[in-house]
Protein backbone atom coordinates (compact mmCIF):
# COMPACT_ATOMS: atom_id res chain seq x y z
CA UNK A 1 0.00 0.00 0.00
CA UNK A 2 1.23 3.48 -0.86
CA UNK A 3 0.87 5.80 2.07
CA UNK A 4 -0.16 9.41 1.90
CA UNK A 5 2.68 11.79 2.63
CA UNK A 6 0.86 14.01 5.07
CA UNK A 7 -0.88 11.70 7.52
CA UNK A 8 0.67 9.46 10.17
CA UNK A 9 0.70 5.86 8.98
CA UNK A 10 -1.26 4.55 11.97
CA UNK A 11 -4.15 6.87 11.00
CA UNK A 12 -4.07 5.65 7.42
CA UNK A 13 -4.21 2.05 8.54
CA UNK A 14 -7.05 2.91 10.93
CA UNK A 15 -8.87 4.23 7.91
CA UNK A 16 -8.35 0.99 5.99
CA UNK A 17 -9.70 -1.05 8.89
CA UNK A 18 -12.68 1.27 9.27
CA UNK A 19 -13.38 0.76 5.58
CA UNK A 20 -13.23 -2.99 6.04
CA UNK A 21 -15.69 -2.77 8.92
CA UNK A 22 -18.13 -0.46 7.12
CA UNK A 23 -18.02 -2.49 3.90
CA UNK A 24 -18.77 -5.69 5.83
CA UNK A 25 -15.46 -7.27 4.98
CA UNK A 26 -14.94 -7.36 8.73
CA UNK A 27 -18.14 -8.06 10.69
CA UNK A 28 -19.13 -7.41 14.29
CA UNK A 29 -17.33 -9.89 16.53
CA UNK A 30 -14.74 -10.81 13.89
CA UNK A 31 -11.18 -11.20 15.07
CA UNK A 32 -8.73 -8.71 13.61
CA UNK A 33 -5.40 -10.01 12.29
CA UNK A 34 -2.64 -10.23 14.90
CA UNK A 35 -0.44 -7.16 15.21
CA UNK A 36 2.40 -9.02 13.55
CA UNK A 37 0.32 -10.26 10.62
CA UNK A 38 -1.08 -6.83 9.91
CA UNK A 39 2.41 -5.34 10.25
CA UNK A 40 3.53 -7.75 7.55
CA UNK A 41 0.53 -6.99 5.35
CA UNK A 42 1.32 -3.27 5.39
CA UNK A 43 5.10 -3.67 5.82
CA UNK A 44 5.15 -1.38 8.82
CA UNK A 45 6.54 -1.45 12.34
CA UNK A 46 4.46 -3.66 14.68
CA UNK A 47 4.19 -0.77 17.14
CA UNK A 48 2.44 1.27 14.43
CA UNK A 49 -0.26 -1.42 14.28
CA UNK A 50 -0.36 -1.56 18.07
CA UNK A 51 -1.04 2.16 18.16
CA UNK A 52 -3.67 1.82 15.44
CA UNK A 53 -5.50 -0.86 17.46
CA UNK A 54 -5.29 1.26 20.61
CA UNK A 55 -6.84 4.23 18.82
CA UNK A 56 -9.59 2.05 17.32
CA UNK A 57 -10.27 0.75 20.80
CA UNK A 58 -10.47 4.28 22.14
CA UNK A 59 -13.12 4.93 19.48
CA UNK A 60 -14.95 1.80 20.71
CA UNK A 61 -14.73 0.19 17.29
CA UNK A 62 -12.72 -2.77 18.52
CA UNK A 63 -12.11 -4.44 21.85
CA UNK A 64 -9.24 -6.52 23.14
CA UNK A 65 -9.54 -9.77 25.01
CA UNK A 66 -6.39 -10.61 26.87
CA UNK A 67 -4.60 -13.50 25.27
CA UNK A 68 -7.21 -13.91 22.56
CA UNK A 69 -6.76 -10.91 20.34
CA UNK A 70 -8.60 -7.85 19.09
CA UNK A 71 -12.20 -8.05 17.88
CA UNK A 72 -14.59 -5.82 15.97
CA UNK A 73 -17.31 -4.36 18.17
CA UNK A 74 -20.62 -6.18 18.13
CA UNK A 75 -22.52 -2.99 18.74
CA UNK A 76 -24.53 -2.40 15.56
CA UNK A 77 -25.16 1.22 16.48
CA UNK A 78 -21.44 2.01 16.70
CA UNK A 79 -20.81 0.53 13.27
CA UNK A 80 -23.77 2.43 11.85
CA UNK A 81 -22.43 5.66 13.31
CA UNK A 82 -19.04 4.94 11.81
CA UNK A 83 -20.61 4.43 8.43
CA UNK A 84 -22.58 7.66 8.65
CA UNK A 85 -19.51 9.55 9.85
CA UNK A 86 -17.39 8.28 6.97
CA UNK A 87 -20.11 9.12 4.45
CA UNK A 88 -20.39 12.63 5.84
CA UNK A 89 -16.66 13.08 5.65
CA UNK A 90 -16.55 11.96 2.02
CA UNK A 91 -19.45 14.24 1.14
CA UNK A 92 -17.83 17.16 2.92
CA UNK A 93 -14.55 16.65 1.06
CA UNK A 94 -16.37 16.39 -2.24
CA UNK A 95 -18.37 19.55 -1.62
CA UNK A 96 -15.29 21.51 -0.61
CA UNK A 97 -13.43 20.48 -3.73
CA UNK A 98 -16.37 21.21 -5.99
CA UNK A 99 -16.83 24.64 -4.43
CA UNK A 100 -13.14 25.30 -4.95
CA UNK A 101 -13.73 24.53 -8.63
CA UNK A 102 -16.45 27.19 -8.57
CA UNK A 103 -19.60 25.05 -8.62
CA UNK A 104 -22.72 26.27 -6.85
CA UNK A 105 -24.72 23.87 -4.63
CA UNK A 106 -27.47 23.72 -7.29
CA UNK A 107 -25.01 22.78 -10.00
CA UNK A 108 -23.48 20.13 -7.78
CA UNK A 109 -26.86 18.55 -7.05
CA UNK A 110 -27.68 18.58 -10.76
CA UNK A 111 -24.35 16.91 -11.60
CA UNK A 112 -24.92 14.23 -9.01
CA UNK A 113 -28.48 13.45 -10.06
CA UNK A 114 -27.48 13.26 -13.72
CA UNK A 115 -24.67 10.95 -12.81
CA UNK A 116 -26.84 8.74 -10.58
CA UNK A 117 -29.54 8.49 -13.26
CA UNK A 118 -27.02 7.55 -15.91
CA UNK A 119 -25.73 4.79 -13.67
CA UNK A 120 -29.26 3.49 -13.26
CA UNK A 121 -29.61 3.21 -17.03
CA UNK A 122 -26.53 1.10 -17.29
CA UNK A 123 -27.15 -1.12 -14.25
Amino acid sequence: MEFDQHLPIYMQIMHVIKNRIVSGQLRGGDKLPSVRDLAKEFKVNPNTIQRCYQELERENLVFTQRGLGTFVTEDVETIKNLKTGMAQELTQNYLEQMQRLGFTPQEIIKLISTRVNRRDDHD
Partner: protein
Amino acid sequence: MTKIVEIKNLTKKYFTKKALDNINLDIEAGKIVGILGPNGSGKTTLIKILTGLLRQTSGEVLIDKHKIGVYTKSIVSYLPDRNFLYKWMKIEDAFQLFKDFYPDFDTEKFAELLAFMKLEMKMKIDTLSKGMMEKLNLSLVLSRNAKLYILDEPIAGVDPVARDQILDAIINNYHANSSMLITTHLVRDMENILEEVVFLKEGKIVLTGDTETLRAEKGKQIDAIYKEVFATEEGYHA
Protein backbone atom coordinates in the same frame (compact mmCIF):
# COMPACT_ATOMS: atom_id res chain seq x y z
CA MET B 1 11.40 1.24 29.50
CA THR B 2 14.57 -0.86 29.53
CA LYS B 3 17.38 0.68 27.58
CA ILE B 4 19.32 -1.78 25.45
CA VAL B 5 21.83 0.76 24.17
CA GLU B 6 23.11 3.84 26.02
CA ILE B 7 25.59 6.09 24.26
CA LYS B 8 26.95 9.17 26.04
CA ASN B 9 29.21 11.82 24.52
CA LEU B 10 30.71 9.33 22.11
CA THR B 11 33.56 10.64 19.99
CA LYS B 12 35.78 8.72 17.61
CA LYS B 13 38.77 10.37 16.00
CA TYR B 14 40.95 8.99 13.25
CA PHE B 15 44.07 11.04 13.97
CA THR B 16 42.55 14.51 13.92
CA LYS B 17 39.43 13.79 11.87
CA LYS B 18 36.29 13.24 13.91
CA ALA B 19 34.30 10.32 12.49
CA LEU B 20 31.83 10.58 15.38
CA ASP B 21 31.43 13.84 17.23
CA ASN B 22 29.78 13.77 20.65
CA ILE B 23 26.99 11.29 19.93
CA ASN B 24 24.24 10.80 22.51
CA LEU B 25 21.74 8.06 21.79
CA ASP B 26 19.56 5.66 23.78
CA ILE B 27 17.75 2.72 22.27
CA GLU B 28 14.89 1.21 24.24
CA ALA B 29 13.87 -2.43 24.18
CA GLY B 30 11.32 -3.25 21.51
CA LYS B 31 12.36 -0.49 19.14
CA ILE B 32 13.47 -0.72 15.54
CA VAL B 33 15.73 2.27 15.02
CA GLY B 34 17.07 3.47 11.69
CA ILE B 35 20.44 5.16 11.38
CA LEU B 36 20.20 7.25 8.23
CA GLY B 37 23.00 8.99 6.46
CA PRO B 38 25.06 8.97 3.28
CA ASN B 39 28.41 7.26 2.93
CA GLY B 40 31.01 8.74 5.23
CA SER B 41 28.49 10.05 7.77
CA GLY B 42 29.79 7.79 10.55
CA LYS B 43 27.25 4.94 10.37
CA THR B 44 29.85 2.23 9.95
CA THR B 45 32.11 3.68 12.64
CA LEU B 46 29.18 3.66 15.06
CA ILE B 47 28.38 0.04 14.23
CA LYS B 48 32.00 -1.00 14.57
CA ILE B 49 32.12 0.50 18.05
CA LEU B 50 28.88 -1.23 19.08
CA THR B 51 30.14 -4.56 17.80
CA GLY B 52 33.52 -4.14 19.48
CA LEU B 53 35.54 -3.93 16.26
CA LEU B 54 36.72 -0.40 17.07
CA ARG B 55 37.29 1.46 20.32
CA GLN B 56 35.96 4.94 20.93
CA THR B 57 38.28 7.88 21.54
CA SER B 58 36.07 9.16 24.35
CA GLY B 59 32.59 8.79 25.79
CA GLU B 60 30.63 5.86 27.12
CA VAL B 61 28.85 3.04 25.30
CA LEU B 62 26.74 0.51 27.19
CA ILE B 63 24.77 -2.41 25.79
CA ASP B 64 22.39 -4.00 28.29
CA LYS B 65 24.22 -1.99 31.02
CA HIS B 66 27.61 -3.48 30.09
CA LYS B 67 30.66 -1.89 28.53
CA ILE B 68 31.59 -3.31 25.15
CA GLY B 69 33.33 -6.63 25.65
CA VAL B 70 32.82 -10.37 25.78
CA TYR B 71 29.32 -10.11 27.29
CA THR B 72 28.02 -7.52 24.82
CA LYS B 73 29.40 -9.49 21.90
CA SER B 74 27.41 -12.50 23.10
CA ILE B 75 24.12 -10.56 22.96
CA VAL B 76 24.67 -8.59 19.75
CA SER B 77 23.80 -10.22 16.44
CA TYR B 78 25.38 -8.37 13.56
CA LEU B 79 24.65 -8.45 9.84
CA PRO B 80 27.63 -6.89 8.06
CA ASP B 81 27.13 -5.12 4.76
CA ARG B 82 29.29 -7.65 3.00
CA ASN B 83 29.28 -11.40 2.69
CA PHE B 84 30.94 -13.20 5.60
CA LEU B 85 30.64 -16.82 4.46
CA TYR B 86 33.13 -18.94 2.51
CA LYS B 87 32.46 -19.81 -1.09
CA TRP B 88 33.05 -23.57 -0.60
CA MET B 89 30.27 -23.80 1.98
CA LYS B 90 26.79 -25.15 1.61
CA ILE B 91 24.02 -23.48 3.58
CA GLU B 92 24.18 -26.34 6.08
CA ASP B 93 27.87 -25.59 6.71
CA ALA B 94 27.05 -21.97 7.42
CA PHE B 95 24.27 -23.14 9.73
CA GLN B 96 26.68 -25.49 11.55
CA LEU B 97 29.22 -22.69 11.92
CA PHE B 98 26.68 -20.37 13.52
CA LYS B 99 25.29 -23.13 15.72
CA ASP B 100 28.75 -24.01 17.01
CA PHE B 101 29.79 -20.42 17.48
CA TYR B 102 26.71 -18.89 19.11
CA PRO B 103 25.05 -20.57 22.11
CA ASP B 104 21.91 -18.48 21.50
CA PHE B 105 21.43 -19.84 17.98
CA ASP B 106 17.90 -21.19 17.55
CA THR B 107 17.85 -24.11 15.09
CA GLU B 108 14.08 -24.20 14.85
CA LYS B 109 13.90 -20.48 14.07
CA PHE B 110 16.55 -20.94 11.39
CA ALA B 111 14.61 -23.78 9.75
CA GLU B 112 11.51 -21.58 9.68
CA LEU B 113 13.36 -18.62 8.22
CA LEU B 114 15.04 -20.79 5.61
CA ALA B 115 11.69 -22.20 4.49
CA PHE B 116 10.21 -18.72 4.43
CA MET B 117 13.08 -17.46 2.28
CA LYS B 118 12.72 -20.52 0.03
CA LEU B 119 16.30 -21.59 0.65
CA GLU B 120 17.53 -25.14 1.21
CA MET B 121 20.31 -26.63 3.34
CA LYS B 122 21.91 -28.34 0.32
CA MET B 123 22.38 -25.13 -1.67
CA LYS B 124 25.95 -24.03 -2.31
CA ILE B 125 26.98 -20.55 -1.28
CA ASP B 126 28.70 -19.74 -4.56
CA THR B 127 25.56 -20.51 -6.58
CA LEU B 128 23.36 -18.07 -4.63
CA SER B 129 22.23 -14.80 -6.20
CA LYS B 130 22.85 -11.55 -4.38
CA GLY B 131 19.27 -11.50 -3.09
CA MET B 132 19.46 -15.12 -1.89
CA MET B 133 22.78 -14.39 -0.22
CA GLU B 134 21.29 -11.46 1.64
CA LYS B 135 18.33 -13.60 2.68
CA LEU B 136 20.63 -16.33 3.96
CA ASN B 137 22.81 -13.90 5.91
CA LEU B 138 19.77 -12.29 7.45
CA SER B 139 18.28 -15.70 8.35
CA LEU B 140 21.48 -16.63 10.18
CA VAL B 141 21.64 -13.34 12.04
CA LEU B 142 17.95 -13.32 13.02
CA SER B 143 18.11 -16.93 14.25
CA ARG B 144 20.13 -15.87 17.25
CA ASN B 145 18.14 -14.95 20.32
CA ALA B 146 20.04 -11.71 20.78
CA LYS B 147 19.20 -8.52 22.66
CA LEU B 148 20.45 -6.25 19.93
CA TYR B 149 20.35 -6.93 16.21
CA ILE B 150 22.49 -4.67 14.07
CA LEU B 151 21.63 -4.83 10.39
CA ASP B 152 23.94 -2.91 8.10
CA GLU B 153 22.17 -2.11 4.82
CA PRO B 154 19.97 -5.23 4.87
CA ILE B 155 18.18 -4.56 1.56
CA ALA B 156 20.95 -2.99 -0.49
CA GLY B 157 20.96 -4.29 -4.04
CA VAL B 158 18.15 -6.86 -3.76
CA ASP B 159 15.11 -7.13 -6.00
CA PRO B 160 11.65 -5.98 -4.78
CA VAL B 161 10.41 -9.51 -4.00
CA ALA B 162 13.48 -10.32 -1.92
CA ARG B 163 13.16 -6.93 -0.28
CA ASP B 164 9.58 -7.69 0.80
CA GLN B 165 10.65 -11.06 2.18
CA ILE B 166 13.45 -9.41 4.12
CA LEU B 167 11.08 -6.81 5.54
CA ASP B 168 8.64 -9.57 6.54
CA ALA B 169 11.41 -11.51 8.23
CA ILE B 170 12.43 -8.44 10.18
CA ILE B 171 8.82 -7.77 11.26
CA ASN B 172 8.33 -11.43 12.13
CA ASN B 173 11.36 -11.50 14.34
CA TYR B 174 10.59 -8.28 16.09
CA HIS B 175 10.55 -8.81 19.84
CA ALA B 176 9.39 -6.54 22.62
CA ASN B 177 12.50 -7.26 24.69
CA SER B 178 15.18 -6.87 22.05
CA SER B 179 16.04 -3.99 19.74
CA MET B 180 17.12 -3.58 16.17
CA LEU B 181 19.44 -1.02 14.76
CA ILE B 182 19.26 -0.75 10.98
CA THR B 183 21.44 1.43 8.80
CA THR B 184 20.17 2.29 5.38
CA HIS B 185 20.22 4.88 2.68
CA LEU B 186 17.20 3.24 1.02
CA VAL B 187 14.97 5.31 3.25
CA ARG B 188 11.82 5.01 1.17
CA ASP B 189 11.80 1.23 1.33
CA MET B 190 12.60 1.00 5.01
CA GLU B 191 11.01 3.96 6.74
CA ASN B 192 7.67 2.36 7.56
CA ILE B 193 9.24 -0.34 9.67
CA LEU B 194 11.41 2.10 11.62
CA GLU B 195 9.92 3.38 14.85
CA GLU B 196 12.66 5.92 15.41
CA VAL B 197 15.18 7.48 13.08
CA VAL B 198 18.56 9.05 13.67
CA PHE B 199 20.04 11.29 10.98
CA LEU B 200 23.80 11.14 11.04
CA LYS B 201 25.68 13.84 9.17
CA GLU B 202 29.43 14.27 9.28
CA GLY B 203 29.64 12.37 12.55
CA LYS B 204 26.92 14.33 14.30
CA ILE B 205 23.29 13.56 15.02
CA VAL B 206 21.46 16.35 13.21
CA LEU B 207 17.91 15.10 13.69
CA THR B 208 16.32 12.29 15.66
CA GLY B 209 12.86 11.27 16.77
CA ASP B 210 9.82 9.09 16.53
CA THR B 211 9.11 8.40 12.85
CA GLU B 212 5.37 9.09 13.00
CA THR B 213 5.89 12.29 14.99
CA LEU B 214 8.52 13.57 12.55
CA ARG B 215 6.21 12.83 9.62
CA ALA B 216 3.37 14.70 11.29
CA GLU B 217 5.55 17.67 12.31
CA LYS B 218 7.17 18.14 8.93
CA GLY B 219 4.18 17.06 6.86
CA LYS B 220 6.33 14.79 4.76
CA GLN B 221 7.79 11.35 4.67
CA ILE B 222 11.14 10.52 6.20
CA ASP B 223 12.51 10.02 2.69
CA ALA B 224 11.70 13.64 1.84
CA ILE B 225 13.19 14.87 5.13
CA TYR B 226 16.29 12.83 4.38
CA LYS B 227 16.69 14.50 1.01
CA GLU B 228 16.38 17.89 2.67
CA VAL B 229 18.88 17.17 5.43
CA PHE B 230 21.48 15.75 3.07
CA ALA B 231 20.70 17.94 0.06
CA THR B 232 24.16 19.50 -0.14
CA GLU B 233 26.08 16.22 -0.14
CA GLU B 234 24.00 14.33 -2.62
CA GLY B 235 23.01 17.09 -4.96
CA TYR B 236 19.29 16.92 -4.23
CA HIS B 237 17.16 19.97 -4.67
CA ALA B 238 14.17 20.03 -2.39
